[in-house]
């Protein structure tokens, strides 16, 4: 993975000093709430319902065991013993003390981490495919390009005060595991007319109040121009994006109002000025970055059948919580953070330390965060998966549900977030209580439930096969249900099935949707496929046929 050099170290250290001074000035009354808000937000610090919330960047979801141990240690000493992994591969602490945040940042800097630009109207952490470098369906490892973008976007002087936040995702595989089509900019590694590698560039995707699938701005961009092209997009957005209405300030609204052709014309006109500037990506620099992501020292191993002759429990875990690796004899292993009685994405300090130790023992000392709020060991020897499972199982980290109904994505909801209208964690619990029969879950197959506590859509509900959105109805928590959304290569936005339902009715509503699916499905059809084939109508009729039992 990428390791800091003197430049990176200097920058994060100087940032800690800067933020320490800003915090001191705020506490001394030299900065107003509003002035400090703009500064702290560019450093991942929100003032939330109960306490400040600190979001720490995990560039494209990649962590060393040393970093994960430090995150666990911070959770124990500065927080209440846990952290929350997010849909953008970062980690959030919900209970730090404002005056201690500079110390937390100093500790993070010691392990080459920071909270720079994890919130605020600036370029956020670049996200990517959690199977980068190990998946068989990949053209090229996207992580060197992610790192290039990370550096270019960090403290970019022109784009520190954008109209609104700006998120970039990069992916190099046929399957889109980074939700790149619902990002402000999606970068896809593709082959050009002569077989050379370059990029397809999408812009204007996003969720929130106005969900939109990104549109292609450029079908093929030669790779040396990646940064200059991004800079042209950002400049058009910075100058022309709306600043008068927070709900219309994302780039998706600009692209939509101009139309993609006119947006493209403006970007290309701007790009003419910058394409041959100092931003040109030279081969030596990209070779240097690629060098950080060389494959680890894999052993020469044959493919085996680790599940053969083992218990049903292990076989289920192996089938659902591990996935194909491009190197024979290896497997990528998910660590499920979706245990029924735990908030999705939450992990304790001791679990973090255990996962760090297991990473050292089984996966070359690296851990990945998935955008579905789980962790992953990317490089596990197939023959070691059984003993790894035994340890994970004891620690509550082997819930065999990856890709199934209970592998839900959820924001922190009303319990922690001051923006939320409704709780999401307790709804996740209700759903887990109702659907606790694994045979049924496995029979339902691939099913993504995504849940957000408000319109901001941090839980990506628009692109869930089943989406759940918390709404406030005269002080009561209600939930609007959508079906047919997807975040992958065939991305689509879900359709609302009808009036929202009470919290207690959410599990019954889902049960009825699934009844229709089971009755109407054809062989190998997923829930999503059936919704796409039949439309919303039969599902809607079933859900609202008779009052749901509470």
């Amino acid at each position: 993975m990428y390791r800091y050099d003197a430049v990176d170290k200097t920058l994060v250290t100087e940032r800690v000093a800067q933020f320490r001074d800003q915090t001191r000035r705020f506490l001394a009354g030299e900065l107003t709430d509003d002035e400090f808000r703009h500064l702290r937000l560019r450093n991942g610090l929100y003032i939330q319902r109960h306490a400040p919330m600190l979001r720490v960047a995990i560039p494209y979801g990649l962590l060393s065991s040393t970093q994960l141990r430090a995150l666990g240690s911070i959770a124990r000493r500065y927080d209440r013993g846990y952290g929350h992994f997010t849909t953008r591969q970062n980690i959030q602490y919900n209970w730090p003390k404002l005056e201690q945040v500079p110390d937390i940042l100093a500790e993070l800097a010691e392990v080459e981490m920071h909270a720079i630009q994890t919130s605020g109207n600036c370029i956020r952490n670049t996200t990517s495919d959690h199977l980068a470098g190990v998946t068989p369906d990949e053209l090229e490892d996207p992580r060197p390009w992610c790192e290039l973008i990370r550096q270019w976007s960090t403290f970019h002087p022109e784009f520190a005060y954008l109209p609104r936040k700006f998120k970039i995702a990069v992916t190099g595989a046929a399957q889109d595991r980074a939700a790149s089509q619902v990002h402000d900019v999606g970068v896809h590694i593709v082959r050009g007319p002569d077989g050379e590698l370059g990029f397809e560039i999408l812009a204007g995707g996003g969720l929130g109040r106005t969900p939109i699938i990104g549109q292609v701005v450029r079908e093929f961009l030669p790779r040396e121009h990646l940064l200059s092209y991004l800079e042209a997009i950002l400049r058009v957005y910075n100058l022309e994006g709306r600043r008068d209405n927070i709900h219309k300030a994302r780039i998706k609204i600009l692209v939509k109002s101009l139309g993609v052709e006119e947006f493209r014309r403006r970007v290309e006109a701007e790009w003419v000025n910058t394409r041959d500037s100092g931003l040109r990506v030279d081969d030596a620099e990209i070779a240097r970055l690629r060098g950080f992501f060389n494959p680890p020292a894999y052993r020469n191993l044959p493919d085996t059948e680790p599940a053969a002759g083992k218990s049903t429990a292990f076989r289920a875990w192996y089938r659902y919580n591990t996935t194909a690796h491009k190197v024979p004899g290896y497997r990528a292993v998910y660590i499920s953070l979706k245990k029924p009685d735990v908030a999705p994405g939450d992990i304790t300090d001791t679990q973090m330390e255990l996962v760090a130790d297991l990473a050292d023992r089984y996966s070359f000392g690296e851990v990945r965060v998935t955008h579905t709020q789980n962790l992953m060991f990317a490089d596990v020897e197939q023959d070691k998966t059984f003993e790894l499972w035994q340890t994970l199982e004891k620690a509550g980290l082997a819930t065999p549900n990856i890709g199934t109904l209970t592998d839900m994505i959820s924001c922190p909801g009303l319990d922690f977030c001051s923006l939320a209208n409704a709780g999401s964690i307790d709804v996740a619990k209700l759903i887990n209580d109702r659907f606790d029969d694994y045979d049924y879950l496995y029979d339902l197959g691939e099913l993504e439930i995504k849940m957000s506590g408000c319109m901001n859509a941090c839980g990506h509900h628009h692109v869930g096969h089943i989406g759940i959105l918390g709404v406030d109805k005269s002080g009561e928590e209600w939930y609007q249900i959508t079906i047919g959304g997807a975040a992958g290569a065939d991305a689509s936005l879900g359709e609302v099935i009808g009036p929202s339902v009470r919290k207690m009715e959410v599990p019954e509503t889902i049960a009825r949707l699934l009844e229709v699916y089971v009755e109407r499905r054809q062989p190998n059809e997923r829930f999503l496929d059936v919704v796409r084939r039949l439309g919303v109508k039969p599902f809607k009729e079933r859900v609202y046929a008779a009052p749901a039992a509470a």
Partner: protein
Amino acid sequence: MPRRLLRDGRIVDDDWLYLAEAEGDAAAPLILTLAEWQGDRDKWLAQDRRLGVVLSPAHKVELLTPDIGRFALIGANFSGPSEGRGYSQARELREQWKFAGELRATGYVRRDQLFFMARCGFNSFELPETDIEAAHAALATFSRAYQPSNDAGLPLKLRRR
């Protein structure tokens, strides 16, 4: 008391006047708003004095470019702590239009934004008195950077690219 500002890394008294301050002074360097400039362009062009003009955030830089050689100073106004268009205006002026005169940040300008402003090409800053002494140090907040920049006058070296 004359207005103090930070210019080229030094705290100096401002030798420029805004139109409202310049009554009866026909020789002092004069800063106009874009509307004042456009409203009486021929009159200003005829005067034998140094001229400057300040852009609002929504103004396109292209509005100035036909006359850019006439301006010794161009300002960009920041309307508040979330305003960011001036950064792009500055880079366009320096890079596309090769403006080499004084590029001044006005309006909401504080020490915390100074580093980014300087890297985009601003070389003078109208700061409140509470920030002006600390501003000098703020220009050196970071000793390294990942991007190419327009701050040739500052002791910042680009390491990569």
